[in-house]
């Protein structure tokens, strides 16, 4: 089976909140919500207030745990994480995704 994976890092002005392999990223773009899958064309977009959905892939990922204030690692594939943001930017290039966001809250569904 083909392994679809992209590398995502989510940065806020305070810290890095997520870094790891994912299969899908959905973001609230300035011109509407869109999803980034494997081999997406290079794009830079501004983000509106809304929710980011990411689905983790096989492999380790790091995330910032707001409850304890520590950076934790996990390897659970296929997990959906949601963050609500008040704005930011996304850059996609060669399956490397950088998300710069502010006003972020982790959202538990």
């Amino acid at each position, binding site marked *: 089976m083909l392994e679809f994976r992209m590398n995502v890092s989510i940065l806020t002005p305070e810290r890095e909140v997520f870094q790891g392999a994912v299969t899908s990223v959905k973001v609230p*773009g300035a011109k509407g919500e869109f999803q980034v899958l494997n081999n997406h064309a290079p794009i830079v977009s501004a983000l509106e207030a809304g929710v980011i959905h990411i689905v983790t892939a096989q492999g380790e990922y790091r995330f910032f745990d707001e409850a304890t204030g520590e950076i934790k690692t996990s390897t659970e594939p296929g997990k959906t994480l949601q963050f609500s943001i008040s704005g930011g930017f996304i850059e996609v290039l060669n399956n490397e995704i950088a998300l710069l966001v*502010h006003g972020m809250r982790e959202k538990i569904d």
Partner: protein
Amino acid sequence: MSGSLKQVRERIRSVQNTQQITKAMKVVSAAKFRKAQQAIVQMRPYADKLNRMLRNILSNMEGEADTVFGTERPVQKACMVVVTSNRGLCGAFNANVIKGAVRVIQEDLAEVRRNGQLSILCIGKRGYDFFRKRYADCRLIADYIDLFQHLDFDHVEPVAQQLMDDFQQKNYDKVYVAFGHFRNAATQFPMVEQWLPVAKIQASGQGGSAKRADYIFEPDMKGLLDYLIPSILKTTFLRYLLDTHASEHGARMTAMDKATENAEELLRELRINYNKARQEAITKEILEIVGGAAALESS
């Protein structure tokens, strides 16, 4: 003699108490400093990436980017943002920042001040106390004086936004920020930077290094800049605060370390004096006894 002995003993005790306090303050500052430094380090990737995005867009635009925040206007109204700490006991740190601000006011903004169009926005109590007393003719803004208690993007952003709005509405033609620039724990120096209007950002300079990927820009490049530039400005503003915060604790650490050292030196001198006085008292007492005994014998 025993009087002076007691006095010296009391001095020693008081110096010891002071030393204990300075030592404790140093330790506290060291802990806070580490946190403040970490905040700067953790912000860096975000700021770098933001700048890289901007470069990227500019190199694709082939030319200069004009934004509302880059328009130079004749300076009639100006704002000086003075970022100082809330507390003293950190050496000349606050005094230096204030001095830097005052110099710019005297050199570049004297005319604006004479016309009564100078606003001073104080973040941190120290600067506010200074300017309240000496710059009564300027408009002092103290709404954000306690910003250091919530030093994160969510709290800093509204302040930056307010200033940017004021700039756009021509309430200010120029905004300066005076803050403590952070180099490392031992060196901080005051700096005054022009925050608005932003200097022209040139795309060139590294043209070759940026690989031209065919990016999709959403919204278009110009629209994207309207998002990016405010973000960069706000991030810069946050950096001013984080820098000052780290500098403050660095300066306090150094100041308290010096104070502890000085107390140690003072103590050493006092102890010598104390021992001298004690010796003298003992010698005197022995002399008295010996003298008394001799007087008894001879009688």
